[in-house]
């Protein structure tokens, strides 16, 4: 299978690889997929609590080249977006940007799931904290 130049670029020079402290209240962590399915994505966002803007995003992915590229691209798309804008990101944007073939669409779906999981995790944390403050 031939890979698009963009997939190859993200594979060779992945953006924003790494991990942030998952106990930081401003960090949301999402992990989706399963080893036996051949892909696991961990995506993290760091949100500025005052502005609600995603200031940093990091990923680590076990998966094929398209899965790595999808999550690498996702971190780029997330930075600078508000939490709600991030939730509106659709997998089709990733498919188009990376020119993924039909057999690799599931990689973009997984990236969208990872974004949603990370944001949800962040929101849950903030809600808990606020609840704690109210008490």
């Amino acid at each position, binding site marked *: 299978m031939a890979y698009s130049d963009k997939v190859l670029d993200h594979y060779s020079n992945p953006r924003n690889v790494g991990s942030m402290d998952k106990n930081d209240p401003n960090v949301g962590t999402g992990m989706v997929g*399963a080893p036996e399915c*051949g892909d696991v994505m961990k995506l993290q966002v760091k949100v500025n609590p005052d502005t609600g803007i995603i200031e940093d995003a990091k990923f680590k992915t076990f998966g094929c080249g398209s899965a790595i590229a999808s999550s690498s691209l996702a971190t780029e798309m997330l930075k600078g977006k508000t939490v709600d804008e991030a939730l509106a990101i659709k997998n089709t944007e990733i498919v188009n940007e990376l020119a993924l073939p039909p057999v690799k669409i599931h990689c973009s779906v997984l990236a969208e799931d990872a974004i949603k999981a990370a944001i949800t995790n962040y929101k849950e944390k903030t809600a808990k904290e606020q609840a704690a403050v109210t008490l």
Partner: protein
Amino acid sequence: MKFPIYMDYHATTPLDARVLDAMMPFLTNKFGNAASRNHAFGWEAEEAVEKARKQIATLIGANAKEIVITSGATESNNLAIKGVAEMYAERGNHIITAATEHKATLDTCKRLEKHGYRITYLPVLASGLIDMDMLRESITDKTILISLMYANNEIGVIQPVREIGKLAKEKGVLFHTDAVQAVGKVPVNVIDDNIDLLSISGHKLYGPKGVGALYVRRKSPRVQLTAQIDGGGHERGMRSGTLNVPGIVGLGEACELCRKEMASESVRLAGLRDKLKAKLEGALDEVYINGSMESRLPHNLNISFAFVEGESLLMGINDVAVSSGSACTSATLEPSYVLKALGAGDDIAHSSIRFGLGRFTTDEEVDYVAQKVISVVQHLRELSPLYEMFKEGVDLSKVQWTAH
């Protein structure tokens, strides 16, 4: 060094130049039909085919009359299994094979199941070997055939063929072996191993594609087959169709070269394979060999790099031609059924690479490939959340994954 480096000799092998030299006259002016009995063109072709038949037979300790030419091992397996099933239908309807067989065997058996045959698919041990006790217990008075491969195409594991042959003979059951990966690579002898039917492929032993053979025992017992292709009654009625003379000449020559060079070639390749293994294991942690190292083809290494997905690894070593058991490299999105049958777990199957070394593999190439694989695995592990968790001491088998 020439790029890309070819290390996928289980998939196919290049045609040896000496084989091409032997074939060339039959691709040009010696074009006769081997079945033309009334002129020199036919005699010349027939003579060449008979010489090749002898060369093929000699490599496996058979008689030339026991060699049926086919289009390749898929056809040989089909002919052996369906041919026996049909011919011996009155004696029984039970066939024993194994879960790690090639699709040419498994799908042939599946088709027979639809026609009322009963098939036992033996599981394999973690080593990839079948359990002889289980095989013995699986044989019933309805069993007509045991079909087990000599050496596996993915993991290179060599089955205890001699023991299987002995047991089959004791029980009066025919024994077919798909020996595509073994013939010409390790000594194979149909007499010593009590093999009744044996499949060979030309392009797996430096011969041409589109030609193969089926050994069919003629004495004690005399094996009979129902032809699966009808026509002019070629190959003693077992396989009709005008003989592929240049292909057959090539297969014969390839067999003769293997016979002469196998002993030294297998030692050389085992040395290179062991060096590749040592380098990878020396530089990387969490590396697993799939299948037995003790009972294995000398030129095979099937290895899993835990926490790294196979296709992404192939992408990183794109100047090296190898195969992966990863689902992402297959059309079905299912990881290798052979590795799954070893009970290794899907994650290990997804992380596997098959290295197949061969006649033209050099020491320099092995060094390059080892270094390249090491650096790509290291790169991908830096990206791998699983490797990170493993390093943090997380038991990955206890994590609640969100399967998709």
